[in-house]
């Protein structure tokens, strides 16, 4: 007879790691900063823009601000009625019964706001006149486009670059490293050689050459290239982890139970190797943001309509008296890179058992 034992589960590895992570104030601050950036990126059209967040026009509710994410998401009725991107006046003139909820900050990331576009608001200053002011807190660029609006919309690019390119790099790195580490032998020789070759090819040549070859490089191409070149460190680490874990007892037990190599790699080894591999991926996100912004700064970024922090810095190079084109986007890049590095550092300290022992 068995007595009824209350079902007690010990906390899992990730719950425990989270518990340790939470106790680090800097790491938590960094994580909340990343969360803040995600919120800005998602809400960008509602924060800064010239298109209504929500409006009722000719009896129909719509959200023209979604056009900032994708041109085709802007309802066609506004193009038919010749709004040409200027909403406030047109809405009132073409449908007196219309109403609209406007973004917090009436400035466009792609063009200068004209005089009286918003009743009573003057045009944005252009050239080197646009120093920071109450109307344009971060100033305006040579063409008169508001820098704050550009930066708010550029957040999407910075975040996407980090996540997408490291998603690609992480996948390639884990697959290559896992194959090499698990199978060993000629597979390992081959994958190690490939890793070494990719490490030795100058990244800049690779990126610049591929961008030059593409007819119309978009931000997605840049992300794919950064991902395709940034996986070597992850592969090396994964290989090491797989080498270490494949001889452990639980793998042997799984093999004895009849699990195939794919199942062993995915279900048994990978979850145990994930924590150490996540650390370089987090640092990689910071590196990817850096690479993208330096490419944009050198003039090899995504084509003009896409707002990127690095391309604002590029505009600054022609005239340093427009210091606001350097200071604000530069600080944004710095803070983002710092935040990701701190998150990576916190993750490292929360998941690495060796460091925990050292602390005692």
């Amino acid at each position, binding site marked *: 007879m068995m007595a009824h034992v209350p079902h007690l589960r010990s906390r899992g590895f990730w719950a425990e790691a989270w518990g340790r992570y939470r106790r680090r104030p*800097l790491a938590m601050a960094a994580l909340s900063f990343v969360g803040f950036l995600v919120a800005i990126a998602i809400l960008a059209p509602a924060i800064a823009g010239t298109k209504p967040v929500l409006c009722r026009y000719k009896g129909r509710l719509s959200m023209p601000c979604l056009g900032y994410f994708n041109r085709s998401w802007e309802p066609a009725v506004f193009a038919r009625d010749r709004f040409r991107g200027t909403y406030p006046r047109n809405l009132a003139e073409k449908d007196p019964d219309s109403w609209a909820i406007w973004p917090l900050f009436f400035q466009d990331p792609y063009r200068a706001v004209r005089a009286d576009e918003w009743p009573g608001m003057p045009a944005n200053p252009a050239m080197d006149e646009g120093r920071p002011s109450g109307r344009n807190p971060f100033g305006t660029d040579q063409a008169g486009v508001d820098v704050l609006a550009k930066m708010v919309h550029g957040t999407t690019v910075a975040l996407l670059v980090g996540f997408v390119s490291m998603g690609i790099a992480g996948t390639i790195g884990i697959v290559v490293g896992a194959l090499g580490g698990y199978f060993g032998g000629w597979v390992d020789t081959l994958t190690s*050689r490939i890793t*070494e*070759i990719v*490490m*030795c*090819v*100058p990244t*800049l*040549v*690779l990126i*610049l*050459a*591929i961008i*030059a*070859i593409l007819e119309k490089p978009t931000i997605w191409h840049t992300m794919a290239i950064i991902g395709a070149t940034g996986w070597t460190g992850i592969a090396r680490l994964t290989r090491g982890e797989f080498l270490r874990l494949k001889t452990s007892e639980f793998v042997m037990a799984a093999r004895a139970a009849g699990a195939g190599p794919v199942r062993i790699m995915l279900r048994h080894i990978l979850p145990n190797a994930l924590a150490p591999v996540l650390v370089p991926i987090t640092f990689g996100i*910071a590196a990817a943001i*850096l690479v993208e*912004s*330096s490419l944009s*700064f*050198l003039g090899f970024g995504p084509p003009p309509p896409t707002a990127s922090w690095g391309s604002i*810095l590029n505009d*600054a*190079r022609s005239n*340093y*008296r427009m*210091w606001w084109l*350097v*200071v604000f986007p*530069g600080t944004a*890049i*710095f803070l983002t*890179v*710092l935040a990701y*590095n*701190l998150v990576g*550092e916190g993750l490292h300290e929360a998941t690495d058992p060796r460091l925990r022992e*050292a602390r005692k």
Partner: protein
Amino acid sequence: MATYLLRRVLLGVLTLLVITCFVYGLARAMPGTPLTVQLGEDPSRKLNPEDQERLRRIYGLDKPWYMGYAQWLGNVVRGDLGRSITRKQPVTSLIAERIGPTFLVSGTALVLIWLLAIPLGLYASARSGHADERTASLLLYVLYSFPTFVAALFLQVIFSVWLRGTPWELPLFGMTDLPADAPWPARWADIARHMILPVTCQTYVALAYDSRFIKANMEEVLRQDYIRTARAKGVGPWRVLVRHAFRNTLIPLVTLLGLSLPALVGGSVIIEQIFTWPGMGRLFFESIRERDYPTIMGLTLMFSVLTLLGQLLADVLYCAVDPRVSVE
């Protein structure tokens, strides 16, 4: 050891072959040739089709890329890196011209980094856990996350706009404003003034990284039993730190030094570009933009050789200084 070295060298040659072939293919796949990119913008300098065809033949651009690669490889084996198409001079003399300025900046930076990083790292491990060490380490970490090109731009704004007209104003671009026949003390003083900002930019990140690295290694060593023994027998705290602990962290430092070899002569593309410093990184960037295949290839070959050599050097030094590690 000999067989290990031989194997590494053979593998290295194989790696070099793959890299150069790949980069050559990529370079040739970029739209435009040195002839069209250089002359294309200016209609008055447009070549007539016959001349263009003749030049294409001279430079071997009429052949498919693999033929061109084979030709380049054949010349390299005979010790000839070819001639730059856009600059009309041998690639070797072009590199010789640019390597000096790059070395000037990165060499100075390297010396500064080690001179500052070692005391900083030792200080941090001596005061580990104290408030001052924590502040210093946090500052270094923040500095480490500060992107170099953003720092370069910030410095340029500070020194060009905010400090203009003050004694602290520093030159922003190029290596020297004086003509080549200026007396050498004035010339060198001018070059030194031009070097301050690029050297600062190349120093601070590595300084932050290296001092953290030293501290991490020191912490590992300070936990060892022989440190406790040394302390127990009455060795002073600084002596323990320097003579007993630091000496044993030299091994990973040697590795780090080996891996910084390519950067020493490769320079930094973006820093040299921002400060228009006439070095290797800038040459690399320009040669890519001009589609100057021989220069791109010469530089790629050099960087790859140095990277592989640095890795080999690091591994060999590791075995040399630590008898517990064997090359197998």
